[in-house]
């Protein structure tokens, strides 16, 4: 089935690029969404099956694939609204839609691959398609954002490749040449620790460009800022999850070797630094879209802290990744409506949003509550579990520092959001503000509600998948 999916998606990408008829393009995108859903259902019914040698429908991949397929539908809908509002010409529309489809396909395949080199290849393809999306507006700012993204991603992809080379050296000591995750795990005790350390450092650093963690987070911020908001939603949620998959699958291998404590130290310090950096920027940032992006850095920092802490933290980390994707995607979709009202990204030119678009303002308010993990947000559950895991691991001082940083983030996030919602902007001329249909916000409410539902009352199958995806990690 994955063969059909990949070739079908490729055919749709090519068709979208060359057929420049609006109706046909929209129906092709719809067709792709159907293909994506059918593929997801197929994956769901065949848990544990390996197809085309390199793709396995395992529980971690499946969880994130379902997340992606759910977010892909509103992303396509909002893209359509975006294209219609901007009166895009045939060429930019064709490039946008085909890059969007290619991005979703590459991310799906990257989630499911069971071989580190295949994950790497699909990560490369996401860079290509994401850069086409970032360059959408074809102005100076877009060019600058694209250039930075492409350059940093190219370097990070090279780093991952160097890591893979070191990993192959480590593997040769075990007398094996198969770089699939299952083989790495089976041979984990025979891997050469020196090369394994080098491999982990390089692969971790490389994937941080996608995950949005110190040291390579900067590229992602510029990308999410300059890409159109519906595409930015994908970059800020499901593409970050691809970085998480890349690191987490390799972390599972290294966690089963004596290097576990060293790896915890590396991941933990990168995570804490990310939280710190996110706090500093959140206090300062005046661009609303970049504020959402920095909030993503903060969340990924929390996720990786959970991974480093271990125990219940593993479970909570995967849960947090899934829930964060829904919330952040919803906020980015909403941003586009905000921009249509105020025609500005700057906090100084935006204000009193409730007066102009009450439904959208509700999304922003609920999204703020969700992403700062206040109850009843689902993220509250996962963050609470991550804090518990830090407590269990005996990292009280770290926990206190993290809580202090989070308080500062909530304060600055809240300050900006309430300014947007309630305080009128100085000198804003509201005579010809665009009326936005409340129905456009419907999907955003659904995503937010879904995050609450999955966090507070998770269905049994969801819990089972979460447990399975962390079952290979050592318990202590």
């Amino acid at each position, binding site marked *: 089935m994955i063969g059909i999916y990949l070739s079908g998606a490729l055919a749709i990408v090519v068709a979208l690029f060359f057929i420049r008829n609006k109706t046909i393009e929209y129906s092709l995108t719809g067709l792709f969404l159907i293909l994506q859903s059918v593929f997801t259902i197929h994956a769901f019914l065949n848990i544990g099956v390996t197809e085309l040698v390199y793709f396995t429908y395992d529980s971690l991949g499946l969880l994130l694939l379902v997340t992606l397929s759910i977010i892909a539908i509103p992303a396509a809908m909002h893209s359509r609204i975006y294209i219609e509002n901007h009166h895009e010409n045939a060429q930019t529309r064709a490039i946008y839609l085909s890059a969007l489809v290619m991005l979703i396909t590459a991310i799906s395949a990257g989630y499911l691959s069971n071989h580190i*080199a295949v994950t*790497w*290849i699909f990560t*490369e393809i996401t*860079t*290509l398609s994401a*850069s086409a999306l970032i*360059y959408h507006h074809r102005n*100076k*700012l877009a*060019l*600058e*954002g*694209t*250039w*930075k993204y*492409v*350059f940093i991603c*190219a*370097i990070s*992809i*090279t780093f991952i*490749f*160097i890591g*893979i*080379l070191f990993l*192959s*050296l480590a593997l*040769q*000591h075990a007398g094996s*040449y198969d770089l699939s995750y299952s083989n790495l795990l089976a041979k984990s005790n025979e891997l*050469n620790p*020196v*090369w394994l350390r080098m491999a982990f450092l390089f692969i971790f650093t490389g994937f941080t460009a996608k995950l949005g963690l110190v040291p390579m987070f900067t590229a992602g911020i*510029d990308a999410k*800022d*300059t890409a159109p908001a519906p595409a930015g939603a994908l970059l800020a949620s499901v593409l970050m999850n691809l970085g998480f998959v890349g690191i987490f699958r390799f972390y599972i291998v290294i966690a089963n070797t004596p290097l576990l404590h060293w790896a915890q130290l590396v991941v933990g310090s990168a995570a804490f630094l990310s939280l710190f950096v996110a706090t500093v*920027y959140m206090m*300062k*940032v*005046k*661009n609303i879209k*970049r504020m959402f992006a920095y909030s993503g850095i903060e969340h990924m920092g929390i996720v990786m802290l959970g991974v480093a802490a271990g125990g219940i933290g593993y479970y909570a980390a995967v849960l947090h990744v899934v829930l964060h994707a829904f919330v952040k995607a919803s906020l980015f979709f909403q941003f586009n409506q905000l921009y249509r009202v105020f025609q500005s990204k*700057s906090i100084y030119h935006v204000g009193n949003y409730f007066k102009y678009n009450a439904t959208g303002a509700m999304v922003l308010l609920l999204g703020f509550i969700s992403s700062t993990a206040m109850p009843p947000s689902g993220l509250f559950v996962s963050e609470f579990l991550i804090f518990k895991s830090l407590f269990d691991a005996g990292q009280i001082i770290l926990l206190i520092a993290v809580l202090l940083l989070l308080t500062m983030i909530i304060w600055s996030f809240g300050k900006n959001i309430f300014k947007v919602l309630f305080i009128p902007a100085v000198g804003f001329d509201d005579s010809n503000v665009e009326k936005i249909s409340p129905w456009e916000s419907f999907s955003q409410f659904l995503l937010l509600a879904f995050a609450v539902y999955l966090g507070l009352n998770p269905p049994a199958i969801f819990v089972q998948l979460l447990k399975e995806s962390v079952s290979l990690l050592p318990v202590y």
Partner: protein
Amino acid sequence: MIHVLLITFIITLFYMAIANRLMTYIKVLALQGVLLFFVVFIQLNEINTLNLVLILLETIVFKSVAVPMFLAYLLKRNNITREAEPFLPNFVSLVITTFIVVVTILISNTIKDVHLDKIFFVVALSTLFFGLYLIATRRKIITHVMGYMVIENGVFVLSLAVGNEMPMLVNLGILLDIFASVLILGIFLNKIGDVFKDVDVDQLSNLKDY
């Protein structure tokens, strides 16, 4: 023989560290491509014809003809001044490059591994760090791209070190090389030349938080 080639490769790095003109950089990149081809030819003993053709295409045609020609074309078309404009004096560059090479030799001496030829490791790692250094200390965007090409060459050497056991990895390296170069060079350097007339990193600072 292979050691001579690899040591020549290291010497090209020193030459690049003190070179003043962008055309010199381009010529050194072309030379590195040729050197890499001979290294591959000697190093990979059990190589099939298809693979050899691929590697030939990559090193000779791509690395030492196509990319340098394209870079030279870009220089001309965008009227980029011929100076490299480093932030640091050449003497300091030379000292730092020496430092990089010495440190990688010291690192590689601590590693005892029968599966790895040490000289490959030294060359690869010092090329990698030199490339990063080049990116960090040159002002023009086109020199950043050249720094990236140097990094790619280092990675290629490293992939050759494990290439006899895992030829797949060499091919993957080639894939990366072509993919990233085409993406960076073909699409964006072209566009950046059109939009920003004098291509300088100082102009790429408009994306701000406020």
